[in-house]
């Protein structure tokens, strides 16, 4: 984009984004964990996390955001795939069909009795893939001259 000599001042935008980013991010985490019992899940959670990062990209520039969130998003997507596939393959060790999920109450030191499902790990994989792919697309298009 061609820059004029007149400096724009994004103070209000940048300050608001600093606050709003965390609200959106936490909401996306909430949506992610809500997926088992209420509407939500890995896909929409991942999209919302990437929209929070996109908001950062709008307020700042690509380089600043890359410095703040120093991940290679393509590798995040690959990690997500590995996690999802690994959840499926874990069933091999228990001699049950591929992608059989386990769930049940687990006693954790701080939280006490918690109902956990291995489907969450699969969903985390989906979440990472969605974040990784969305951000790769946006960053790649954004950086192309």
């Amino acid at each position, binding site marked *: 984009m061609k820059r004029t000599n007149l400096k724009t001042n994004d103070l209000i935008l940048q300050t608001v984004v600093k606050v709003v980013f965390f609200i959106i991010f936490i909401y996306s985490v909430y949506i992610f964990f809500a997926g088992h019992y209420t509407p939500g899940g890995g896909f929409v959670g991942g999209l919302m996390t990437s929209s929070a990062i996109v908001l950062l990209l709008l307020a700042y520039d690509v380089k600043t955001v890359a410095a703040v969130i120093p991940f290679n998003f*393509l*590798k995040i*997507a*690959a990690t997500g*795939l*590995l996690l999802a*596939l690994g959840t*499926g*393959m874990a*069933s*091999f060790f228990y001699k*049950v*069909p*591929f*992608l*059989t*999920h386990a769930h049940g109450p687990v006693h954790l030191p701080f939280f006490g009795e918690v109902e956990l499902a291995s489907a969450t790990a699969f969903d985390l994989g989906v979440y990472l893939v969605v974040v990784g792919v969305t951000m790769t697309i946006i960053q790649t298009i954004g950086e192309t001259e």
Partner: protein
Amino acid sequence: MSNNLVMMPLILPLIAGILLIFFNRKPILQRIISTVFSLAALIFSLILTASVYQSGIQIVEIGGWAPPYGITFVADMYASLLVLTTSLIGLTGILYSFRTIGREREYFFYYPAVQFLLAGVTGAFLTGDIFNLFVFFEVLLMASYVLMVLGGTKRQLRESIKYIAVNVFSSALFVITVAFLYAVTGTLNMADLSVKISESGQTGLLTVIAILFLIVFGMKGAIFPLYFWMPGSYNAPPAAVSALFGALLTKVGVYAITRVYTLIFIHDQAFTHGLLAWLAALTILFGVIGAIAYWDVKKIVIYNIITAVGVILFGVAAANPAGIEGSIYYLIHDMIIKGALFFLAGIMISITGTSDLRKMGGLIHRYPVPGWMMFVSAISLAGIPPLSGFIGKLKVIQGGFEAGEYAFAFVVLLSSLLVLYSVMKVFIHGFWGEEKPIQGNPSVKGMVYPVVILVALSAAIGLGTEFIAPFVTQAAETLLDPSIYIDAVLKEQ
């Protein structure tokens, strides 16, 4: 009884594809990982085929949910043989890529895309759920879009726009067709679909859906009025990619037509299979017309794919033991030999720097091995007895005669002659005659041995037909009698 062995040929390329994403800047490591995982996939598909042969159809109920509620992966003999051939083509394709694909493409996720393509093809062969079949179609199509456009030359960009447009359209039609089918039957599991349709009888609406499926899969598998996208698209990418496409992608469409027309829509054969026979015959005709019309090495091979698709589908349309067996033999033979022919076309183009037959000649003096490989592949493609193409075509024609389709069977016979003419044209003009100055890279180091593997295998299938005959017979039995498939999937709890 669930047997996770069925998943292995699918999971191994997936793991390989994911791992390769992490190492995109290390070409040597990429080659090692690709080769090791492809070899492992080949070994596991061999084990799978052996276990299907010994103890019948193997299934996995994904997630432990019994069919028809969950997704089932079903390895019958037909699917296992195709998975075995796929992993073999995948391995040779990767070996061929080492010398031909170039650093640029290797850096930009060529090998992961190949592995995802193989995973998609394997999944499409193994799945027992019609919507899951759609998902695997998309997996292999996405990977093929990447492979087609990778490199970014002008021609690749132009052809991939057409290819993607056609496939997006046919995928949308696939979803609509599945929606119709689900509205009518209320199930997506293939075995359960077959039961539901047998109970209610194939009404007119279901025959319409059957034809819609023929259009969808025909577009993927390049049958007569729907093959228009193929000659341009398959010509654009490098030879290694064309070989994977030519050997695997259209065959998935053919497999899907065979599956739905032998398992699900079997109650109005006079109409559906009659139409299929007509389309197969026209596909053969238009394929050979294209094959003899061109002077471009790759175009000739591409039009031969179309002819082969016609021959295979004619065997299916005959719907008797000889026809089905013939189409299985011919399908396996054609996957192997099309791989070899594309590799050879790639070698010729790499040496001469042109794909125009009129500008090359006399290659056999300096390149005897590729030359004779071309000769053997050519006669194998045409169906000369000691090689693999013979038994398939013989059985297809026998099936045609038994079904009383004399005219169509003669079309198949005549097509062999013209196919032989078209590939002999490549051999005679490319390898015989005066040596012409070559503009390309005179070294063929590392490019010939994948061809030798495939041609040797083709000869082995031809000579050892007795050895593979029981496997093919078992595959044909399942296709001819859907109750074997249905019992294995639904009754075995």
